[in-house]
């Protein structure tokens, strides 16, 4: 457990006045507040640090204690006595406290071990600051394979120890977030529950590439089929498809298979297209006979 320099965190001098501390805190809070930095873990961590620093330095009693024991807190018997006294006072306070919005943004775990050890947890002022009417929103990430999201399917998730049966519509996209209403934290005294936000992380281990609802596939074509034409069979998500190759097909020729792409999200029966690009493979390891025939062809 390392010593934390709260003055450094707020960027103020040890002799800073209350006004200067408040000003520094406000300035940093405006920069790192979680509401202004959604999904930003770095900002969230920074905000917790500046909150903790403010919690200590804006309270004259805490600041005095921090200044007195600060760096030597580990070795000070006097500090240990003060800490026990502080913890006793806090448990008495919490025992009698009620009030609204216990599910809010500040919990003991939001504070460092250093803070916990020195001040025994969050103060009442930090707790009452959180604004919560409904339950807390939960965020979860669900990892799926591209094949999984080709069809609508049901999946059971465990979020905060609670099992949730979820229908995942076909066509959901990588990075897409869906909101499951009322499956977040429980609201207090009958207030509405929070929501569950699920972010989809879709990995693709197939030979197809996906762009929104369209799929892209490179198909190798041997030289003779490209020159003379013929049939090939390819695999799609929808099963095997037989394709006619026109004679004299050029390298890089694109073919569109309408409706053979990915399902359109929440539009049942609608599909994107599959784009095939032919890549003509030149034969290698030619026999003498083959080389001879190619020479003859070249002379024509």
């Amino acid at each position: 457990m390392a010593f934390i320099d709260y003055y450094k965190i707020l960027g103020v001098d040890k002799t800073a006045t209350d006004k200067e501390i408040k000003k520094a805190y406000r300035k940093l809070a405006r920069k790192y507040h979680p509401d202004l930095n959604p999904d930003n873990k770095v900002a969230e961590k920074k905000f917790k640090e500046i909150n903790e620093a403010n919690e200590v330095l804006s309270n004259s009693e805490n600041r005095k204690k921090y200044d007195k024991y600060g760096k030597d807190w580990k070795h000070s018997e006097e500090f240990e006595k003060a800490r026990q006294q502080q913890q006793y006072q806090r448990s008495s306070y919490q025992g009698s406290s009620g009030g609204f919005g216990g599910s809010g943004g500040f919990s003991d775990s939001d504070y460092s071990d250093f803070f916990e050890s020195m001040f025994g947890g969050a103060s009442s002022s930090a707790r009452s600051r959180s604004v919560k009417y409904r339950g807390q929103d939960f965020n979860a990430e669900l990892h799926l394979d591209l094949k999984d999201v080709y069809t609508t399917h049901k999946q059971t998730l465990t979020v905060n120890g609670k099992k949730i049966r979820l229908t995942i519509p076909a066509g959901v996209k990588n990075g897409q977030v869906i909101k499951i209403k009322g499956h977040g934290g429980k609201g207090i005294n009958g207030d509405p529950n929070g929501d569950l936000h699920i972010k989809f992380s879709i990995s693709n281990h197939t030979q197809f590439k996906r762009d929104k609802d369209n799929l892209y596939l490179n198909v190798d074509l041997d030289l003779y089929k490209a020159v003379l034409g013929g049939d090939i069979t390819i695999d799609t998500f929808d099963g095997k498809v037989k394709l006619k190759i026109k004679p004299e097909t050029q390298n890089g020729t694109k073919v569109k298979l309408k409706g053979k792409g990915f399902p359109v999200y929440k539009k049942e029966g609608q599909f994107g297209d599959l784009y095939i690009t032919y890549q003509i493979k030149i034969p290698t390891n030619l026999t003498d006979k083959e080389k001879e025939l190619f020479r003859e062809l070249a002379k024509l």
Partner: protein
Amino acid sequence: METKNFILINQLCSNYNVELSFFKQLSEIGLIKIMTIEQSHFIHQDKINDIEKMIRIHHELDVNIEGIDVVFNLLQKVDNLQNELTSIKNRLQLYEND
């Protein structure tokens, strides 16, 4: 009219410890929509998340109503850009590992 999905503003005022005028100002600037049902003012429960965010920004960061409007507009832009970035990242995979 059914009030099941609506929350009484007076209730929110006491819970959040804010004045009714705060909600009226948010409504005037177009950030929230106040529903009047049988002379009582309500807000749809789907807007609670946003309202809590507005109150936090107002109280914790000393941002006034106009500032909240600016912040919300910018957050909306950030959200749109984030979605665009995700879409472009997905698109980029088309050209990777070829």
